[in-house]
């Protein structure tokens, strides 16, 4: 049990209404409706290419949607470039391939957001970055370049970099998929700690154990559509659709 299990009355942070996304003729997302409440951890699962990551990228407008709407804090995602930057500053994103800046040390990576975007002083952003590196257990690696960090360490720096903007929501796009098995745990632990702190999180993942233990809400995607959503207990122990059972069966998940 996590202490962050959101009460049903919590405010809605993100709301997706009938979201549609097309790449040419290919339907990437079709009629996607769901919502994310404050302090909730929502895990998106499903086969590769089912639209989970696309939905995440639409959430901070790295991709535009072709139909429906996404509301952040009750307001529809803006189209205007300056306005969209303001929205992105309130969301943190963590990528499958870390995407740390290779020409910057770990701490400089974390400083980038606060100093460039928020306009914090050197000292203030450095203090913030040091605290965050400590939080993810990498205070001693502050001066390392990404090339001198393991995958797990790089991903933890990337989490610190996103947190440095003090976001209201964290978006995780398959954060452990590019990691060696032995470093997956350290990243999941950091994410679990974040969830326990009450961070609102959307996590695209193939880590079913994580989804089961940490998520408040699990959404199953297939071919751009949501085929089932509900609490992890329902999804993993009593899935209501045959397709969910199929998907979990393919993973070798036996409940």
């Amino acid at each position: 049990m996590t202490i962050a299990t959101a009460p049903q009355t919590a405010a809605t942070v993100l709301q997706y209404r009938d979201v549609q996304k097309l790449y040419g003729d290919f339907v990437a997302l079709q009629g996607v409706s769901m919502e994310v409440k404050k302090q909730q951890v929502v895990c998106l699962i499903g086969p590769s290419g089912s639209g989970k990551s696309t939905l995440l990228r639409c959430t901070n407008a790295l991709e535009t949607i072709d139909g429906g709407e996404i509301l952040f804090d009750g307001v529809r995602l803006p189209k205007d470039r300056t306005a969209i930057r303001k929205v992105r500053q309130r969301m943190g994103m963590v990528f499958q391939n870390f995407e740390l800046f290779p020409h910057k040390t770990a701490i400089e990576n974390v400083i980038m957001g606060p100093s460039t975007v928020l306009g914090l002083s050197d000292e203030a952003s450095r203090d913030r970055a040091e605290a965050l590196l400590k939080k993810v257990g990498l205070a001693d690696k502050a001066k390392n370049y990404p090339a001198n960090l393991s995958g797990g360490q790089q991903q933890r720096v990337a989490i610190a970099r996103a947190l440095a903007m003090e976001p209201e929501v964290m978006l995780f796009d398959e954060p452990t998929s590019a990691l060696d098995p032995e470093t997956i745990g350290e990243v999941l632990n950091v994410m679990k700690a974040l969830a326990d702190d009450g961070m609102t999180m959307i996590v695209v993942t193939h880590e079913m154990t994580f989804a089961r233990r940490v998520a408040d809400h699990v959404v199953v995607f297939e071919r751009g559509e949501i085929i089932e959503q509900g609490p992890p207990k329902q999804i993993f122990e009593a899935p209501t659709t045959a397709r969910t059972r199929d998907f979990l069966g393919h993973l070798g998940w036996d409940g």
Partner: protein
Amino acid sequence: MDFNFGPVIESWRFLADGVRITVLLSLSVAACSLTFGTLVALARRYGPKWLQAILIFYIDSMRAIPVLVVLVWFYFAFPIATGINLPPFLSALVALSFNLTAYVAEIVRAGMESVRPGQVRAGLALGMSTPQIVRKIVLPQAFVRMMPALGNVLTLTVKDTAIAAVIAVPELMRRADAIAGQTYTPVEVFSTVMLLYFCIIFPITRGVDIVYKRISFLGRS
């Protein structure tokens, strides 16, 4: 056959000053080409359509015209066409830079395109603007990645400065030609000149290689 290095040794100050001018011209051309090449690459990628079209035409034409022709044009035709008279050194600086800027622009463009799109997404996700992303994320990595190609252009620059001899810039080649003509020792003089060019360029090639090996990780995303 007998060699007579007397004239070369006697006029070593004269030749050394030629080396100085060759190096000065090379560095000036390199600095101009790098600056303008980067601006051209940025304008080609982010500028308005009409400007992109002009720049593509400029790059294509510079790749299609011999640099000697560009040089001669700037020295002999440009003053008559515009009424602006440039001294030889400045003519050479403008002509060589005008030519090499096109090559540098292509290198910078390729360098920027080689930076992974995910790096730009990471910047966007932080809420950075496109100019911030270009300045703080894309260009620094691109320049690291471009180092070998830019080093190559720098050696080309030094070599290209030799053609400035035809418009009487008193650089190494021009002076060598003068000594060889006066003393009838072309073998000794031009062999010395070959050696001098080699001594200028070889350390650049090796140096760029060594530095690049050490810092290439800074551009590896």
